[in-house]
């Protein structure tokens, strides 16, 4: 699986209240949550982000609450992948369970908003298209990619049961 997208860069410790503030948690409707994605970090984000774009963060991305609304909002906003130095553990699990692929890359800090990158999940390779500079990350194993392509854990399980 390979994708190409524009980078939206955020800092360290992006918490789940920044990703989707609790004032919007009276619904779990993906389209509604997407309208407020990253609102308290960048109020105009939902209007600017394009389909297939990529969020890049520093260390400890997704810290805080267990709300699955966070990866749901990011995915429904059209984001194809999140790359960060490290992820908070509940967010990490929730992202894959929701079918949102995420990659850990300790050089993620070098990427900036507006960069165009390609991501190869099989090889765990991130390439900055302007300079062809390559960054390495852990590959996403085939079963996890299948989980993502199925649309998340429950759909993956349902497919396997059939």
């Amino acid at each position, binding site marked *: 699986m390979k994708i190409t997208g524009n980078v939206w860069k955020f800092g360290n410790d992006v918490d789940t209240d920044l990703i989707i503030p*609790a004032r919007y948690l*009276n619904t779990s409707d993906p389209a509604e949550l997407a309208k407020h994605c990253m609102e*308290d970090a960048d109020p105009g984000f939902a209007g600017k982000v394009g389909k297939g774009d990529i969020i890049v963060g520093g260390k*400890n991305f997704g810290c805080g609450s267990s*709300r699955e609304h966070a990866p749901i909002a990011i995915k429904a906003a059209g984001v194809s992948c999140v790359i960060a130095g*490290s992820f908070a553990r509940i967010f990490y699990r929730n992202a894959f369970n929701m079918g949102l692929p995420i990659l850990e890359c300790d050089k993620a800090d070098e990427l900036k908003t507006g960069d165009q990158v390609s991501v190869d999940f099989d090889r765990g390779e991130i390439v900055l298209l302007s300079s062809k500079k390559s960054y390495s990350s852990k590959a996403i194993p085939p079963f996890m990619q299948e989980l993502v392509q199925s649309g998340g854990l*429950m759909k993956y399980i*349902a497919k396997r049961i059939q």
Partner: protein
Amino acid sequence: MGMTITEKILAAHAGLERAEPGDLINAKVDIALGNDITAPIAIKQFHESGAKKVYDKTRVILVPDHFVPNKDIQSAMQAKMLRDFAYEQELTYFFDAGEMGVEHALLPEKGLVLPGDVVIGADSHTCTYGGLGAFATGIGSTDLAAAMITGEIWLKVPETVKFVYKGKLRNWVEGKDLILYTIGNIGVDGALYKAMEFTGPVIESLGMAGRLTMANMAIEAGAKNGIIAPDKITEKYVSSRAARKYSFYKSDKDAHYAEIIEYDVSDIEPQVACPHLPENTKGVSQVGDIRIDQAVIGSCTNGRIEDLRSAAAVIKGKKAAKGVRLIVIPATPHIYRTALKEGLFEIFLDAGAIISPPTCGPCLGGHMGILAKGECAISTTNRNFVGRMGHPESEVYLSNPAVAAASAVLGKIGDPADVV
């Protein structure tokens, strides 16, 4: 080589002799928990999967505590989803209306989570139950849906960092200060993916409320779980409440730790975490002149009776400063009733406080005390992220209940020693 308490509990629940850091295990779940924000997604997935029954109707617990009493129509619909599901599945433990309390205060109080358990909850502060000597961790709604069906969860066995607390605590220094101090020291990702094991003479003499507070905020250092070995204090707390068997585990002397961190806490003063991360901690005397508009005393972190007593001891006979909204939220109906009987409500009402029914409410900016643009609060809750309690341009400082009460009296952040 020996094992840590976390490794022993996980091994026992996976039917294994040993569990080592990095092992992927499938663990039996003693309690699976959801609330009115996270359970609706899990319930939807439960139904979509074609599942008919939860794995055990006595072990799936639903507590609508976040936006309840319902703050708006959509929140009411979410709470109703829990109610409908609880009736359909005939869940033994569904806490509605007058029985509802803040989940992580309620479950230990009712004896529903016990030492040696594996507890998973779709709420990040599920780690609270580590204070009882259980392995407890927060998960998302999808993992909850799977666990409600199967009664199992796959987990990676975490490495453990051992924290040793030595010395004698100063007046007004509590469990909250120990955990804030620790997070200030190691950072909000200082224990990422790991178990935090709290040990040492200070912990051995810490009461159950303080222990639950410490384990509660392990997630604020990125930890998978926080845990304290059960002892006589634990036994006294659980023996009269437990309706099923429980087991005391403790770490072997030759257990392996990723790191051992020792603190002499004799000299630390009450701690305050400044905006916008729990790691921005300072001693209360170092915070400076911070005027406050609101003081919140409550939550799964500090809404227990011991916390209300501590706040009342500071505020007795005094008034909240003009312009400060003091909000007191007993975390459960039992705590509410006890505070009433002990005369604490009289003290709070005399001080000009608002007493709220049990709810998570303002902690996450839900309701019952939202901040306007530019406002500042001191709060006994657990997070001070941007916009956590309301407007993105409001601020939250975290502290223990005595400091919050003292600050309410002073109208600015201050030391209880200056008020009492």
